Structure formats: C-alpha cells, structure tokens
C-alpha cells in the first residue's frame, strides 16, 4: 500500500513530539554555547542576590561608623588555626589596628590577624521584611558584637559596609534594567508589531521615527529629559522616571526586531492559512505569530538589559540619574569615581566588577539564546 490512512491520534502525536523536540533542540543548541550556560547561572545568581538582598547583606547599607572610614577588606576566613597548629572550621574575620593621621587627614588600618571575630551564619538580627513582605529576623552572616567591624569587602568613606551596599545596589540596578526592558518590550512589541503586521504608511512612519531616534546621540536626550524631571520628586519617583526615560530610547531596537520578525512571518504559509480560515488579526497575532518568535524576543530583550544597566551608571556619573542616598551600582561607582579611591581604596571599585560580570553574562546568555532560537537568523 502506497498511502496509509493516518488515525487522528497519530496525527496529533507528531505535532506534540515536534514541539517538544523544538524546545529540546533549542536547549541542545543553547548548551553547545558553554559560555552561555555559565552566563545563565551567573544571571540567575545575581537576580537571586537582588531578591534576597536583605537576607544576604550583613548590615544595613546606610549604617555608618566613624571608626572604620575607608577600612580595607577583611576577607572571610573559614578555618582557624588552633594553638596546637591544627585547623578547625571557624568562620571568622580579623579585626583592625587603626590610627588617625591628623596631618594626612585619614585613618590608617592594618588587618590584625591576632584579633579573631567569629562570624555566625544565619545570625539573628533586627527583624526586617524580606522583599518587603516576608518578616524575618535572621541574616545569612553576622558577627556577635555590635561594635565589631565586619567588612568582608571593606568600608566606604563613611565606614559603611561595601558588601551590604553592593548587595542592595544589585537590587536597584538589576531591577531598573529589567523594568526598563519590560517597558521597552511593551512599546516595542506594540509599535513594532503593528508596523510589521500592517505595513504600509504606518510601517514607514514608525521606521522613520525609529531611525530618527537611533540617529540622535543619546546623551543629550537623556540629559534633556533627566533635567526636565520635576525636581521635587522622591527617590522612588525618580527611579521610575529614569526607567521610563531609558525605555523611551530602548524601545526602538526591540521594535525593529519585532517588526522584522512580523514582516517575515506575515508571508509565511501558516499565517496565510490562518488568514484564509478567517481568523481575526488579533487572533493571528497572538495565537500564531507571537508564539513563533517568542524566543527571539526573549533573546533581544536579554541583550537590551545590559544597555540599560550601563545607561544607569552613565546617568549617575553625569549626576543625572539616581542619586545618593539611593544605593545602586551607578551611585556606588559615582562615589568611587575619583583618584583618591583608585589610589587608596580600590576595593570601592567592586561595583564596577559587578557591572562587568553581569553585562558579560547577560550578553553571552542573550547571544546563546539567540543562536539557539534561530541558528540562521540574525
């Protein structure tokens, strides 16, 4: 028999298998890009840190101490050498020897290995609300004495714990990237989607606008918009306003990607088929087209986040973005942005390292995702 009839059950089966295998295929392609896999874990770690900031940060990011301004990193030691020379597990940090040099106007610190300050994991703390709603009263790490120094990564110019500030800054910086991209995505999908689906004058108009915005140097746009923000806004309002400003410029790239995909999908057979079946535009877009390029959108969005994070730091550098007392990587870097810090307190550049790592990770993750989603597309 040349042609066999196929039962409905069999007809359904291959499609299911096919979809699964497409995801599996994507995952397989993604895994080929080992850098992307490593990056994925890094990104997850960073967002976990952002989510659990209050729990992970040893101290309040604004808690200062006159005695420990510019204290260098203590490092965290896990093992302690006993008197008999053996090693035992005892997480600890070392205290400081410090003196004030009135002529040079500074405190000098030497980490003193003689002074051992034990570190407790899951140390009890003042009660706080994790992520704003989960009441907790335990922190990942802590020291016993309230006046004992605990600066694993060192202290800033007011004797505030850099590690804690870094962890809290992670939350602001990463969420601003995420929120900005979400907004951009919204604009991008709506505008780019309509342009790509309907084409014609609307498409040309949108594309001209996109081209125009992309041909403007961004700094003056940022400057102008940031300077125009109502100045009596609170930190939170400014935060959202900055997000919106970033996404006002960021949406263009995503709109372009979405439009491109729409344009190429519009002529695909399955869309034509759906149109012939009399499906509504909305249904076609949401049921047929959007799912078919979700992976691209995710990849493009991932690749847009680093730009947002960098933009946040750049705006802070220019003194137009978030400002102290808000703690973000940008504001932390702005505080470290001077020769004094480079020369005498280089540990304060740690936020820079975080920026580099997360940006590399997001880029490679996005690249891997894109490669995996569409090995031939761009």
């Amino acid at each position, binding site marked *: 028999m040349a042609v066999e009839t196929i039962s409905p059950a069999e007809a359904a089966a291959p499609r299911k298998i096919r979809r699964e295998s497409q995801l599996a295929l994507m995952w397989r392609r993604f895994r080929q890009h080992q850098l992307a896999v490593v990056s994925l874990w890094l990104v997850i770690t960073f967002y976990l840190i952002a989510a659990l900031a209050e729990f992970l940060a040893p101290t309040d990011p*604004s808690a*200062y*101490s*006159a005695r420990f*301004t510019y204290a260098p990193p203590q490092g965290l030691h896990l093992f302690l050498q006993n008197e008999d020379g053996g090693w035992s597990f005892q997480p600890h940090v070392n205290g400081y020897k410090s003196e*004030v*040099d*009135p*002529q*040079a*106007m*500074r*405190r000098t610190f030497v980490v003193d290995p003689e002074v051992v300050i034990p570190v407790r994991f899951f140390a009890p703390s003042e009660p706080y609300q994790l992520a704003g709603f989960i009441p907790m009263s335990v922190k990942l790490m802590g020291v016993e004495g309230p006046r004992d120094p605990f600066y694993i990564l060192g202290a800033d*110019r*007011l*004797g505030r714990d850099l590690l804690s500030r870094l962890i809290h800054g992670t939350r602001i910086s990463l969420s601003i990237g995420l929120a900005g991209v979400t907004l951009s995505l919204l604009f991008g999908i709506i505008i780019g989607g309509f342009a790509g689906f309907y084409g014609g004058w609307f498409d040309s108009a949108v594309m001209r606008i996109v081209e125009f915005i992309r041909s403007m140097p961004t700094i003056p746009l940022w400057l102008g918009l940031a*300077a125009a923000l109502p*100045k*009596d806004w*609170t930190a939170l309002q400014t935060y959202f306003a900055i997000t919106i400003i970033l996404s006002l410029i960021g949406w263009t790239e995503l709109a372009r990607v979405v439009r491109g995909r729409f344009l190429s999908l519009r002529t695909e057979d399955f869309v034509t088929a759906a149109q012939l079946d009399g499906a509504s535009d909305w249904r076609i877009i949401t049921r047929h087209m959007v799912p078919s390029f979700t992976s691209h959108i995710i990849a493009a969005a991932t690749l847009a986040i680093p730009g947002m994070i960098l933009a946040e730091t750049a705006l802070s550098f220019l*003194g137009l973005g978030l*400002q*102290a*007392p808000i703690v973000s990587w940008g504001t932390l870097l702005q505080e470290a942005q*001077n*020769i*004094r810090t480079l*020369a*005498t307190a280089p540990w304060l550049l740690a936020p820079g390292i975080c920026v580099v790592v997360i940006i590399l990770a997001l880029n490679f993750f996005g690249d891997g995702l894109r490669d995996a989603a569409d090995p031939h597309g761009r």
Partner: protein
Amino acid sequence: MRMNHLSGLAGAVALTAIVAAAGPSWAQQQAPMLDALVESGELPPVEERLPANPLVVEPVESIGTYGGTWRSALRGGLDNAWIARTVAYDGLVRYNREWDEIIPNLAESWEVSEDSRTYTFKLREGLKWNNGTPFTSADIAFAVELMSEPSYGAGTFIKNPNNPVTVEVIDETTFSFVFENPNGLIMDDLASVNGFTVVSLNKEYCSQFYPKYNPDAEANAQAAGFQTWELHMQDRCSWATETIRWANPDLPMMNPWMIEEPLTGDATRTTFVRNPYYWKVDTEGNQLPYIDRLSMRVSDSLEEITLMALNGEIDFQDRHIATVANQPLFFDGQEAGDYRLGANVPSTSNTLVLQFNMNHVDEKRRELFQNKDFRIGVSHLLDRQEIIDVVFTGQGEPFQVAPRPESPFYDEEFAKQYTEFDPDAAAAAFEAAGLVKSGDVYTFADGTPLQITIDLIASFRSEWVDMMELMQLQLEAGGLDIELNNIDRTLYYDKRPLGDYDAQIWQGDGGLDVVQEPRYYFPANGESVWAFRWQAWYNGANPEIAEEPAEWARNQMDLYTQLRAEGDPEVRSDLMKQILEISKENFPVIGVSLPGNGYYIAKNNMRNIAEPMLHAYLFPTPGPYDPFQWYFAAE
C-alpha cells in the same frame, strides 16, 4: 575735604616714605627676557616704563630671581575666577595680607568727604597700560560711564539703583566718585575682587565699540557678527574678570601678566606673559613680577588636574583639587611630586548651615520654624563630634554660624551656644516649642504629623550628602521625621520666592567677611534663605512676596542701613557688633562645625608664598598674597 583716618592711609604714607627715601639711589632692574626688547628699541628702558612712584612691595621671605613658568589648571574654559585670583587682583586699592587693612595700589592715596559721599583718589604718576599708553582718570570715568548704561549688562556698586555714582575727573591722576547717598562700604568694594571692574577698561581702545564715541560702533558690531553693540563691547571689552575678557589679547591691562595665548572657547591652554609696564617693584627696585609666565591648562577633568598636581606638573594651586577627600593623597605624594602643602584658612564659619524657613507659606510650619526653642532642640540633637569624626576625620570643632576665631567679631558664646549633644535638652526644647511626641516621633500639638524635608544639592559639596545622611539618622533618633531632598540647583533657587520649602542647607559664608556677607546674621540678601521674604522687604526686590520682618530683624536692618552709610570703620564695627548681638540672641540658623583648614599645593622651589593664607572670595586668595613677588628658587 579732610583726610579721613582711614586705616589704609597709614600704610600708604609709610610706603611713600620708603620710596621717597630709597628712590633716587635705585638702579632699577628688569627681567632678562625684556633686555633684548629694550636693546632693539621695541620697549623703552625700565625707568621710563615704571611710574614715578612705583608701588614697592615687601617680599614675603626674600628678594627673588626672575624667570620660570607658573603652571596651574582651569577647570573648564569658564573658570575665570582662577584668573581673577591670580592675574587680576589689581584695583585702585587692595587689602593687606592680614585682611584687616585697605592699602594703596593704583591709587597712591585717597580722601573721603565728611558726609561719606565723595571719595577722591590720587593715581600714581606715569602709570601705563601694557601697551605703553598712559592710565589716567579718564579711563576710570569711561568705565563708570559705560557700565552705567542701562542696556549694558555690568554690575557692582556702579549700578546700585539705591545709590547711583558719577565720576568727577579733576586732572589726569585725580578723580572723585560722587555718590547720591553716603556710602560706607565703597572702600571694601574697591579693595575686594570686584575692585578690578573700574580699572579694567582702556578708554582709547574700548570707546571704539561705544556708539557714544564712535558713530559706526553699531554697524561695526553687526559686521562683526554681533546683534547689538553691547554684545560686541562685551566680547571685546568685557567688564571685570568675565571669562570672555581673557579671550581678547588686544585688550589693554594693568596686571602683572598679560594675555599671551588667549582663553578662547576651544583653548586647551591659556598663557600669560609678564607685563613690561607693570608698576610694582621689590624693595631693591627690581621690577615685578619675578615669574615670566603663567600657563594654565584648561581641563574639564578634575581627575586630570589632581593627577597633574600629584605628578608635580602644577606649581601652585588650591582651587578645585584641594579637597578634604584628596588630602591624604596629596599628603603622601609630596615627595614624589616635589611639592608641599600649605594651610588655607577658610573664611567660612561653618561646614553646613541648616536654615529652617521662617517665612514658610504654611502657617503652622512658619510658626514652628520661627520658634527659637525648636531650633535649639534641633541643634542639641546633632552629635557634632561624630559628624566631625566621620566626615572630616576629626578636623574642626562644633561651631554655630558665627564669626570665626580669627575675626575681630569672634564671640565664643555665639559660636558655641547649643552645640553640645544633649537629647534631654532637645526634648525639653521641643516641648517648649509646643511639639508633642506620639510614639517615637514628634508631631504638631494638634497631632498632625511633622515631616521635615531638607533640600540639598549633592553636586556642590560631596560632604554635604555624607553630613546630611548622618544628621538625618541623628535627628530621627531624636524623634524628628526628616526627609532629604537632593535637588537640582535651578530648583533650589526657584523655590525661594515660592516659600514652600521646609529647610535648605548651604555653607557658612561670612566667617571672616562678616560685614560684607551678613546673610546668616540678619535677612540681608537673597542668600538669606531662612528669611527670604523678610530680606525681600529689606531689599525692595520681589515686592510681591515681601513681608514685614519680626522686630528684632527690623532692628538689625536699621543698624545695617546705618552701617552702609558710615564712613568711619570704628563706628561700622560697633554697628556690626550690635547686629551680631541680636543674632546671637535670636539664633536664626543652625551650624554644625568650624571648617578645618584647607590647604594649597606649591612646588618646593616656589618661594615667597605666605603660609597660612586666608581663603575667601572677596579677598581673592592668593591675589592679596602678591603672586607677582613669588619666584622659583634655583635648585
């Protein structure tokens, strides 16, 4: 006219005496770089270039040697103030190095009329602009005439609507300022950084841009690409120390150095070279300045300037780089950079002035902020020593907004009142002020919540943010709900007339220049943010928001009005003391700490630099310390 017992006069007489005694025996010397020019006949010999009676300057340490280039840096192309401080501090008169006396400069003597309305100056005989043309009374008259022009945007005392001035030219070297009303502060105006304005224009050169003297001026301006003659004038003959002035090398000057490479908009460096006609000599009759050239790098990057200083590429500078934060860096780098640090004594009385708005538009807040007990309470809640330790590494002492210890007006009680950290006293004071505690925080007596927003501009002083963050925590610990509002400077100014701010902060101006800058002692000017509507009443500006001040403030204003019209320094001083007494009694603003000494950076081979120096704006450090007698010692 009688000779007023002006303090400046004694110095003038003394110096004239030296000149008269030593004059004839001098063989006047000039810098070697000028020798060739004199030989070639391009320049007349030094005797002919100097006035008959040059100003003799006593070097700080020793007679210097000629030569060298003084390297420094401007922060961006608009940093004209550094030029004003180094090149341009030359008015009719100047302050002595102790800032307690006004001494002769271009004018060798002056007289004040009995009614303090007419000030008559006698210029040195034979003064010349750097192009060799004579400097006369006519140049002064021209400057005043031009700047009195309503459409011309120049200010200072010349344009004071309350007290217009005219110039009477008596002869080439004698002229009078004639004021409509008595003027007691004019000598300080002339001795300050602003004094340069009246001696900055050469009539011969600048009158060509002035339609009054040149009928084609308007047309020439258009042809040169300017919309009006005023813009053209401003471009060619800018008043005082405006940036644009240093972009025109043709503009004649009376300063120790003259423009060599102009400070144009795209300049990356500006240089000044010695003025061969400079009219000052040292005690051995050597024509000043000692240093041949000034080279100022135009740098937008503070970090670059800092590195240049560390690298020994700056010979003397304090502006911009000598910050608290950089001090350890510069201290450590002294040997490698071959420079030393010298002390700058700031003129400000305080690191931070907390000004509650006594003219708040909200009735309840206005009443609270006007209540002295409330301010006392706030003051007692501040742990000033902790702030000094954390932010200033222990430099400084708790201090109110009062004259500095170096000032003749210093009053320890005024400076120290309510500075001890005392939460109990604070609680008592708040109770007296009518606040009630609900839970941990204070509210108004009727129970409405009290949140106080303090405006600050972080970009001006980085330590303000640090200080305010600590103060916020301290005040909150004492039960006050404080919100910090880091705002843009434009808004900072726009808010003032609106009157809806709770409090703003600024630095403590007027610590040494007590009389000239009394903004915190009574509602004196637009910078008296704590009583903006009262000062509007006093100054007649913004009449729509002006409010009649409280009685004590009105008394102060009356006293200051008298002071302004008083020619006698002793009487002025007494009047000021009365104003300060009222201020101490009413405690209008809250201070934190006395600023520790600042510092300057000078190469080790740079000599004759005073140490320490007073540092202020009106007394434009290092100008009054005579940079023209600084020199580079041979190694």
